C-alpha cells in the first residue's frame, strides 16, 4: 500500500510551487492546434481545456494523433497552427517546463545509474540542488515505494519498479501538471494496482493530470473526464457517464453467442442491426423486452443460442460506437 503522506511534506519541499493553479489561469489550454507531417495531418484543429485538480483521460486508437498532441503539450513538437499554454505560458517555455511533469511511455531512465542517482540526475536537470534535491529524491522514492531499492541499478529492477521509477522521475521537480503517457504498459496486474494507488495519491493531493491509456478500466477508474481522439480530432469529451448517455441514451446492450455457420451468424447479426465482435453478437436495445424478438429471429434463422447477457454500455462501447475500432487496434 502506498502511504499517502506527502502532500504536507511535498509542499514544504516545494515552497515555490503550488499544486493549485492561480485563479483564472487554467493548467492547460489548447486552442485550434494543427500539426502536419508531410501530407499526413497528425493533429487537426484540437482545442481542449483542463481544469485545476482534474484528471483527464486521453483515449484513442494507434495513429489517432495522441502522441503528437502529447509532444506538443511537452513542447517537443512545434505546431503548424494554434497554441498550447501551460498555466498561461507557451508550451516549451521555461515556466511551462517547470510547471509540467512528463512521464513518457518509454522507460526514459539511465540503466547504469541507481534509482537514487536517476532521480538526482533528473532533479538537477530541473535546477534542483542541495537539500531541496535530496528532499525531492526522498519524496519520490517514498511515493514510488522504492526506498528499499534506492541503491539498486535501474537495469536490475523489475519491470514494475522501473515503471514506478519512470513516473517518479517525471515528478522530481514537483510540477503542477503531470502528463502520464501509458504508465502501465507491460506491467503485471499487481504492479498496475500499485501504480493506480500512486496516481490516486496524487489525485488526493489535487494534482492536475492528463492520462493516456489503452485500458478502458484505467480511464474509468482514474479519470474525471475522457477525451476520445481519432483522426487528429477530439471526437468526444465529457465524463464517462455523459459519454455513455450521449452515445446510447438509456439503451442497453445485449451480448449473445450462437452456434452455427459463421457466415450465417454474421449475415443474421448484420440484418438485425448488430455487430459481431470476437464471435459475440452485440445488439443495442431500448427495453429488455426486445430480447425475446431477437431470440425468435435467431431460432428462425437456424442459429442455436449458447450464451446471453444484458449490460449497460461502458466506455469501451462508446469507443467502439464512435471510432468503429477497438481501443487496442
Amino acid at each position, binding site marked *: 500500500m502506498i502511504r499517502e503522506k506527502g502532500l504536507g511534506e511535498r509542499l514544504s519541499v516545494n515552497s515555490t510551487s503550488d499544486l493549485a493553479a492561480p485563479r483564472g489561469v487554467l493548467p492547460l489550454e489548447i486552442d485550434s492546434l494543427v500539426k502536419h507531417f508531410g501530407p499526413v495531418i497528425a493533429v487537426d484543429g484540437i482545442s481542449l481545456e483542463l481544469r485545476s485538480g482534474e484528471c483527464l483521460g486521453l483515449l484513442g486508437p494507434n495513429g489517432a494523433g495522441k502522441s503528437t498532441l502529447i509532444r506538443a503539450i511537452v513542447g517537443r513538437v512545434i505546431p503548424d497552427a494554434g497554441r498550447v499554454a501551460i498555466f498561461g505560458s507557451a508550451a516549451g517555455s521555461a515556466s511551462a*517546463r517547470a510547471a509540467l511533469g512528463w512521464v513518457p511511455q518509454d522507460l526514459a531512465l539511465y540503466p547504469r545509474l541507481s534509482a537514487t542517482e536517476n532521480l538526482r540526475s*533528473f532533479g538537477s536537470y*530541473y535546477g534542483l540542488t542541495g537539500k531541496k534535491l535530496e528532499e525531492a529524491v526522498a519524496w519520490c522514492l517514498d511515493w514510488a515505494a522504492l526506498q528499499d531499492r534506492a541503491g539498486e541499478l535501474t537495469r536490475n529492477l523489475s519491470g514494475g519498479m522501473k515503471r514506478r521509477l519512470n513516473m517518479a522521475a517525471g515528478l522530481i521537480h514537483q510540477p503542477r501538471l503531470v502528463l502520464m503517457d501509458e504508465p502501465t504498459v507491460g506491467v503485471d496486474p499487481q504492479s498496475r494496482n500499485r501504480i493506480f494507488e500512486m496516481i490516486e495519491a496524487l489525485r488526493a493531493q489535487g494534482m492536475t493530470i492528463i492520462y493516456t491509456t489503452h485500458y478502458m478500466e484505467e480511464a474509468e477508474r482514474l479519470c474525471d473526464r475522457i477525451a476520445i481522439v481519432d483522426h487528429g480530432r477530439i471526437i468526444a469529451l465529457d465524463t464517462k457517464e455523459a459519454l455513455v448517455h450521449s452515445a446510447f441514451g438509456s439503451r442497453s446492450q445485449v451480448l449473445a453467442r450462437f452456434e452455427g455457420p459463421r457466415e450465417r451468424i454474421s449475415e443474421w447479426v448484420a440484418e438485425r442491426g448488430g455487430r459481431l465482435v470476437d464471435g459475440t453478437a452485440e445488439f443495442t436495445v431500448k427495453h429488455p423486452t426486445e430480447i425475446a424478438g431477437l431470440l425468435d429471429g435467431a431460432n428462425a434463422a437456424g442459429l442455436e443460442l449458447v450464451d446471453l447477457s444484458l449490460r449497460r454500455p461502458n466506455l469501451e462501447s462508446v469507443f467502439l460506437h464512435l471510432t468503429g475500432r477497438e481501443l487496442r487496434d
Partner: protein
Amino acid sequence: MIFPIVRTALVALRRDRVSLVLSFVVPIAFFSIFAVIFGGQHDTVPRVKVIVVDEDQSRASQQLVKGLESDGSLVVTTRPAPTKSQSAPSDYTAATAEAAVKAGDVSVALIVPHGFGDHPFSFGGGSNSGKSGPAIELLNDASDMIAPQMVGGLLQKAAMTAMPVAMAEQGMKYTDQYIGGFTPEQRKLMKDNLDRYRKIESQQVSDGSGAAAKSSSQGGFGGGLITVHTRSVVGENKKSPMVAFYAAAIGVMFLLFTASGSAGALLDEAESGALDRVLSSRINMTGLLAGKLVFNILLAFTQLTVMFLWAWAVFKLDFFSHIPGFVVMGLCTAFAVAAFGMLLASICRTRAQLGALSTLFILVMSAIGGSMFPRFLMPEAMQKAGLWTINAWAIDGFTKVFWRDLPVTALWQQVSVLLAIGIVLFAVARRIARRWEYA
C-alpha cells in the same frame, strides 16, 4: 536444405549496411592506403628533404651541391621558403639549418664548411691520407633513422658523379705535393688508392648504398670519398627514441574510438526516450551537447594521461619534464577528438551505424595521419593528405613536446589547428543535432 539458409543469410546481409561497409568498404580503403604508402604508386616515392649550407662557396662545393640538387631522391633547399613578412629570405646558415632540423622542418641538414674545396676528397677515409679538408657535417633528427643514411650515401654518389674535375685536380695536387713525379713507389701508392676507389665503386654498384652503407654502421660517413661527420641534433640523449611518438600515435587512435563510443550514449538516450525527457527539462540541446563534450574531453585527457604515465613508468619516457606541453597538447587533442565523436554520434541513427562509421573513419585517419606508420616515411602526397586528420596534428604536437623539447609557444600551429577542428566539428554536430530537438 542448405540453399534456403544461404538465401536467408544473403538477404539479411544485403539489408545490413553496417556489415556490408565493414565487409567491403573498410578492407578496400585500407588496402588502398597501405598500397600507396608502401610504394604501389611509383610516381610518389618519398623524397628526402635536406637543407644544404654551402659555407665554402668554392667550385668543388658548388659542384657537390649541384650534384645533390640533381638527384631525384632528394629535395634540396638552401634557403627558407618565402613568407609574407620575408619575400626573399637569405640562405640558411649552420645555425638556422640546425634550428630547422630541431624544429622538424627537415630530418637532415648538410653543412659544407669553409676550406672544403681545398681538399674535398680524402682517399682512405681521411685517416691516412696526410692532408685532408674539413669534414662535411651531417645534422640529423634521430627519430628518422632512414633519411641520414640515404643522404650520406647520396652525398658520396654526388661526389663520384658530379665532381670529376675536382677529383682530377685533387689527384694532381696529390701528385705534385706528395709524389713529385711517378717513381715506382709512387706508382704503387697510386695503384693502391685506385684499387681502393674501384672497390668503393664496385660496392656502390652492388648494393646501391655506396660507402655510406658501410660507414653508417660506424656511426658516420668518414669512410667514403668525402669525410662526413654525423651529429644528431634532436633526440641524441633520449633513452627510448620512439616511445613518445608511439604513445601519441596509438593514444590518439584509441582516443578517437573512445570518444565516438562515449558520444554514442547520445544515441542510447535518444532510443530510450531519456533524451526527450532531458530536453523537456531546463536543459536545451546546446547545453546537453556542451555537457557531453566536456565529459568526453575529460575522458580523453585522462586516457592520454594514463597512457603517458605508463610510458614513463615502463618505457622511461621523460614525462614530468614536459608537463606544460603535455597539458596544452593533451587538452587540445582531447577537444578535437571529443568534437569528432559528437559529430559522428549526431550523424548516425543507431549504435550499429556509429560502430561502422567510426571504424571506417578512425582507421583511415589513423593510417594516413601517422598513428600506424610514421608520416615522414610516407609519400609526399600522403603526408599532405595526413594534414586533414586530427592524428597528424596531435602527433606533431606531442613530438615537438617530447622529442624536440620545444617550448609551449612552439605549439601554436598544432594548437590552432586542433582547436579550429574541434570548434568546426562541434558546430556541425550541433547543427545536425537539431533533428532531435523538435518535430
